[in-house]
C-alpha cells in the first residue's frame, strides 16, 4: 500500500512534467488570446494598441476565412472518408491467409513513415507534374491530354496525397483490431450459414467500431493541422483553393506579419480542435478504467 512518504515522493516525481506542460499550455495560450485583442504588426514593434474584437471581426469577414473553413472541412472529410473505408478494405484483405503477409504489410504501411515534405514534393514532381510526371507521361503516351493536377484539381490532389500517407495508419490500427477478433465466433457463424456480408456486418464491423472511432478521432486531430503538404505543393493556391485554416493563420501572422489577426485565427483553431478533442478524450477516458 502506498504510504504517506511514497505519496509525497510520487508528487515530486510527477511535478516536473506537470509544471512543464502547464507552462507550455498557459503561457502561449494566454499570449495568443492577449494578442488577438491587439492591433499588433511584427514590423511595427512597440506599437500595439488594444482594439477589442476588431481582429475577430476582420478575420471572420475576410472571404479567405470562409474559403479556409470550407477547405479545412473538405480536406479533413475527404481524407477521413478515403482512409476509413480504404483502411477497412485493406485490413480485411490483409487479414486473410496469404503468402508473404509480412512483406505485403510492410509495403502497405511504408507511406506512413515518409515525412510530409518529402511526400508532398515527390507526388507533386514525380507523379503529378503534367509534363515529366508519371501520370502525365502515361496520359500523353495513351494519347490523352495530361491533367495539370495542382492547377485544375488542387484540393483533390492534396486530399489524394494526404490520404496516401494516412491510409497506412488506418490500415494498421484496423488490422490490429481485426486480428484480435475471436475466430471461433466467425467460424460458428459460417457453420450456421451466415453469408460473408452478414458476418462482416454483424460480427466484424461491431468488433471494429472502437478502432474505427479511434482512427477517425486521432486523424481528425492531425488533419486539422495539415501544413507542410500544402506549403511544398501549392502554397495555398491557386488563389485560396487549398488554403486551410492552419495555412491561413500562418500566412497572416508570419508572411503578412499581422499578429493580431493571426492570433484571432489561432483562437478559432483552438476552439475548433477542442470540440474534436472533447469526443476523443471521452473515448479514451472510458478505456482507462478497462
Amino acid at each position, binding site marked *: 500500500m502506498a504510504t504517506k512518504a511514497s505519496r509525497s515522493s510520487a508528487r515530486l516525481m*510527477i511535478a516536473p512534467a506537470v509544471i512543464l506542460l502547464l507552462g507550455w499550455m498557459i503561457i502561449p495560450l494566454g499570449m495568443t488570446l492577449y494578442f488577438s485583442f491587439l492591433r499588433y504588426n511584427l514590423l511595427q514593434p512597440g506599437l500595439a494598441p488594444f482594439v477589442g474584437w476588431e481582429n475577430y471581426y476582420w478575420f471572420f469577414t475576410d472571404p479567405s476565412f470562409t474559403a479556409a473553413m470550407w477547405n479545412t472541412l473538405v480536406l479533413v472529410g475527404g481524407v477521413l472518408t478515403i482512409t476509413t473505408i480504404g483502411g477497412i478494405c485493406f485490413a480485411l484483405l490483409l487479414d486473410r491467409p496469404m503468402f508473404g503477409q509480412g512483406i505485403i504489410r510492410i509495403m502497405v504501411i511504408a507511406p506512413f*513513415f515518409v515525412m510530409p*515534405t518529402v511526400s508532398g514534393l515527390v507526388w507533386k514532381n514525380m507523379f503529378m507534374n503534367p509534363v515529366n510526371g508519371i501520370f502525365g507521361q502515361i496520359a500523353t503516351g495513351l494519347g490523352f491530354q495530361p491533367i495539370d493536377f495542382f492547377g485544375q484539381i488542387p484540393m483533390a490532389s492534396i486530399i489524394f496525397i494526404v490520404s496516401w500517407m494516412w491510409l497506412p495508419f488506418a490500415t*494498421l490500427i484496423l488490422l490490429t483490431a481485426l486480428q484480435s477478433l475471436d475466430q471461433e465466433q466467425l467460424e460458428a457463424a459460417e457453420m450456421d450459414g451466415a453469408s460473408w456480408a452478414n458476418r462482416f456486418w454483424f460480427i466484424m464491423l461491431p468488433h471494429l467500431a472502437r478502432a474505427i472511432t479511434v482512427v477517425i478521432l486521432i486523424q481528425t486531430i492531425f488533419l486539422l493541422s495539415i501544413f507542410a503538404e500544402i506549403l511544398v505543393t501549392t502554397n495555398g493556391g491557386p488563389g485560396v483553393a487549398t488554403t486551410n485554416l492552419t495555412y491561413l493563420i500562418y500566412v497572416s501572422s508570419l508572411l503578412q506579419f499581422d499578429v493580431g489577426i493571426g492570433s484571432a485565427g489561432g483562437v478559432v483553431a483552438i476552439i475548433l480542435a477542442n470540440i474534436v478533442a472533447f469526443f476523443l478524450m471521452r473515448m479514451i477516458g472510458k478505456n482507462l478504467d478497462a
Partner: protein
Amino acid sequence: MARAVSNKKKISNTAVAGILGFFMFFPILWILILSFKTEEDAIRAPLEVLFGSGWTFDSFAAVQARSDYFKHFMNSVIISLGSTLVGLIIAIPAAWAMAFVPAKRTKDVLMWMLSTKMLPPVGVLIPIYLIFRDLGILDSRIGLTFVLMMINLPIIIWMLYTYFKEIPGEILEAARMDGASLRDEVLYVLTPMAIPGMASTALLNIILAWNEAFWTLNLTSAKAAPLTAFIASYSSPEGLFYAKLSAASIMAIAPILIMGWFSQKQLVRGLTFGAVK
C-alpha cells in the same frame, strides 16, 4: 481450430494484396530507382528509365555538395534523439509514480496531460515564435529540441504509463517477501521489466520527432534546419531535379522507414494511447 485454407485461395489472396501493396509502396520504390539515375535519365518515360538507362551514385554526392545534406541530417538526429532523451528523463519518473503510487486524481492528471496534445500548433505558433526570437533561440537546435520534447511529452508519459501498469504487482510482492530492499526492487526487478516499454516509447518518439514538419519549418531557416525543412527547400524551381530530389528524399526517409517497420506494434499502441490492442 483453424480452418485449412487451400493454396489456391492463398495464392489469389496474395496476388490481390500484393498488387495493392505494390501501389502503396510504388512512390517510395520509384524515388529509390530515380535516386540512382542521372538527371537526363530521370525524366524519361517510366519504362525507359527502368530499362534504358544506367545506374549511378552521382545524385547522392550532388545532394551533399549542393547544400550540405550531412549538416541537416545531424540536425535531425540531434533534435529527435535529444527531444526523446529529455522527454524520457521527465516522463519516466512521472509515469512511474502514476502507475505505482496511484492517487485519486491520477486519472484526471493523465487526461489533462493528453489534452495538451490537442492544442493545435498553429494556435500557439506566434507566441512561441516571439518568445524564441526574444531569447535568441530561433533557428537553434536547443529551441527545436525543446518544442519537440514538449509536443511529444504527453504521448511519452501515456505510453510509459500503460507499459508500467502491466508490470504485475505479484512479482514485486514476491521480491519484498524475499527481503529485497527498495533499491534492489527498482534495480533488479522493475527496471529489467520496464526496459522494453521504454525502448518502444523512445522508438515511437524518435519517429514522430523526425517527421514533425510544422514547427521545424516555422522555427528554423538555415542553421538548425532538420531534414524536413531541408527537403522543403527543394520546392523552389531551381530544385526541380528529379534524381537529386529523389536521392535527398531517400536519405531523409530511409532511417525512419526502417525503424518504423520494426516498431509497427508499438506504433499502434502509442498512437492510439493503448485504446486498440
